[in-house]
């Protein structure tokens, strides 16, 4: 159970061991690295994504958090090579994934990897399955595409995956159409489809946002179990910091198309450095269980044409000073933990202030 105390403690111990390993990860352990990614949509003045770096090690769970509209989905789509080629203009960005290097300004992830070694679960389970085809055929199609083999083998694999994601009476499901399934069931099908080819990297973009609250925990638990079972590197995009605390190894915080802070989960929760992260932490119940003030960050994300120069958070930041018109670099606080604010590391500045 998610709320089981002993389990949580055990998990924390596991996580911290993993954390140590992750800190010392050498180049070979890096499964996916996205470097200096910049993108604008045609007709816009400013970049929607403005210099984002991300990396995921084999077996690592990276959570990306941030208010909606800050570019999480666009970043995920860019990794998968799913951005519309007509309107998305990528001015810089290199993707290294599992031995392959892709210059995103000219290319996208090869279709052999897409849906194979890298797979994605979307935010919209209700509309992500093709209404015209049977569930079984839609999963089997992906299996055939990447593993080849006979139709029977693909069908067996499909059945195995439907069982694994916990759909009741999987044999009957094979022949059903999407409209015969509930939202939660459809998301299970999407998960089965994404994991059918044993991906090395799984991207889940707010996989539970569109679902009933009662179903959300089940789906997340399923993703977490499958991830642990197979050691799949995972990027989980979520609003839910409670979920982050449960399953993340590392956390990346995005604001206005920039990476403002990233680090091991414990540090992000216990020692957030960026004013935006601090604001986020205050707007949710704390890890320890006692409910903190539910303050939210004042105001809202400016639209892309109103984005300020320099630190994009400065229209809402309580600490903003004139120097913030200059873009702060992502600076290390401790090894593996970095934040993009002129006042980082905070403690040092606070001490000076005292």
């Amino acid at each position, binding site marked *: 159970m998610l709320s089981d105390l002993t389990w949580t403690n055990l998990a924390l111990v596991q996580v911290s061991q993993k954390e140590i390993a992750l800190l010392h990860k050498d180049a070979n352990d890096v499964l996916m690295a996205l470097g200096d990614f910049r993108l604008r949509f045609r007709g816009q003045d400013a970049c929607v994504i403005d210099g984002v770096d991300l990396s995921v090690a084999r077996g690592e769970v990276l959570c990306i958090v941030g208010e909606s509209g800050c570019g999480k989905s666009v970043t995920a789509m860019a990794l*998968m090579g*799913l951005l519309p080629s*007509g309107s998305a203009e990528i001015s810089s960005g290199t993707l290294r994934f599992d031995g392959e290097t892709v210059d995103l300004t000219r290319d996208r992830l090869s*279709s*052999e*990897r*897409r*849906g*194979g070694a890298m*797979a*994605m679960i*979307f935010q*919209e389970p209700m*509309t*992500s*399955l*093709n*209404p*015209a*085809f049977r569930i079984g055929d839609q999963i089997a*199609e*992906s299996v055939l*595409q*990447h593993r080849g083999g006979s139709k029977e083998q693909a069908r067996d694999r499909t059945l195995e995956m439907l069982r694994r994601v916990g759909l009741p009476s999987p044999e009957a499901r094979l022949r059903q*159409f999407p*409209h*015969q399934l509930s939202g939660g069931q459809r998301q299970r099908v*999407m998960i089965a*489809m994404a994991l059918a080819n044993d991906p090395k990297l799984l991207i889940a973009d707010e996989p539970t946002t569109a679902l009933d609250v009662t179903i959300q925990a089940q789906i997340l638990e399923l993703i977490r179990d499958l991830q642990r079972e197979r050691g799949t590197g995972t990027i989980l995009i979520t609003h839910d910091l409670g979920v982050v605390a449960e399953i993340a190894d590392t956390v990346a915080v995005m604001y206005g198309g920039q990476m403002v802070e990233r680090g091991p989960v414990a540090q992000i929760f216990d020692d957030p450095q960026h004013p935006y992260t601090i604001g986020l932490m205050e707007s949710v119940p704390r890890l320890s269980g006692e409910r903190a003030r539910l303050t939210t960050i004042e105001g809202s994300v400016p639209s892309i044409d109103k984005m300020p120069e320099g630190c994009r958070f400065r229209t809402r930041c309580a600490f903003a000073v004139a120097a913030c018109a200059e873009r702060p670099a992502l600076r290390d606080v401790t090894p593996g933990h970095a934040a993009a604010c002129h006042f980082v590391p905070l403690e040092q500045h606070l001490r000076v202030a005292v």
Partner: protein
Amino acid sequence: MLSFFLRRLLIAIPTIFLISIFVFGLQKLLPGDPLLVLAGEERDPAVLEFLREKYRLNDPIPVQYMTWAGNALRGDLGISLRTNQPVTELIAQKLPVTLQLAMMSLIFAVVIGVPAGILSAYRKGTMVDWVANVVALSGLSIPNFWLGIMLILLVSVKWQLLPASGYVPPGEDLWLSIKTMLMPAFVLGTALAATLMRHTRSAMLGVLTSDYVRTARAKGLSERKVVLKHAFRNALTPIVTMTALLFGELVAGAVLTEQIFTIPGFGKLVVDAVFNRDYAVVQGIVLVTAVGFIVMNLLADMAYVLLNPRLREA
């Protein structure tokens, strides 16, 4: 699903009833006494009265209608005032000619219009899309008679590749029959291809941005599979519906083309009948055409249900 079809059929019956009243009523309102046609120069009142009695024109109108409708139900649409042939026979002779023309035109329309629509939707906003739209618009604006005459002059007269006119039944010489009808079918088909292209384009635009098309791409499928399987399958419903309705329009719209290529089809029958005030024939033709439209509509509805798993499995 079965109950849906039954319901549609039940709606068709009163529709046909209304149409038959309309067809019959129009006849009565039209100026000109059909008997004058029949009697020719003969204006002898006694003769006219005899004919009136013979064709039961002295009965009250509802009785006349009942007689006419009852006969029509039994397949008897009366006698042509001009040729004395049964109308049903006339129609049965000419309809297959026009159906062949319509079928061949439809093949042209589908083969040109659907791929062009898919391509222009997929390449929306590019040169390809632009060219397809300009060509489609030209196709719609160029009058059929002009295109027909040009084709005859060029292909038949100058290059002598295809026969300029006439009709050969497929049973006699299939290949020659197809060859003879190639140009008229092309003329009729291109105009429809333009309509079909625009419909295909808009249907495809609707589905190409859908989440399930994104999912298909996320599986690593080829663009061909993404577009032609995952997107097109969902755009198919409006396209098939449209095609079925176009077919009805084709039969009606063949009139002009048949005149240009002197094809002895339905269209020629209509024109001759109207000019000759051969009212029984006109009535029969309108009724058969209307019923044909209703049947095509019914087929379109069925296709709609059969193509939709949501409706089919209900």
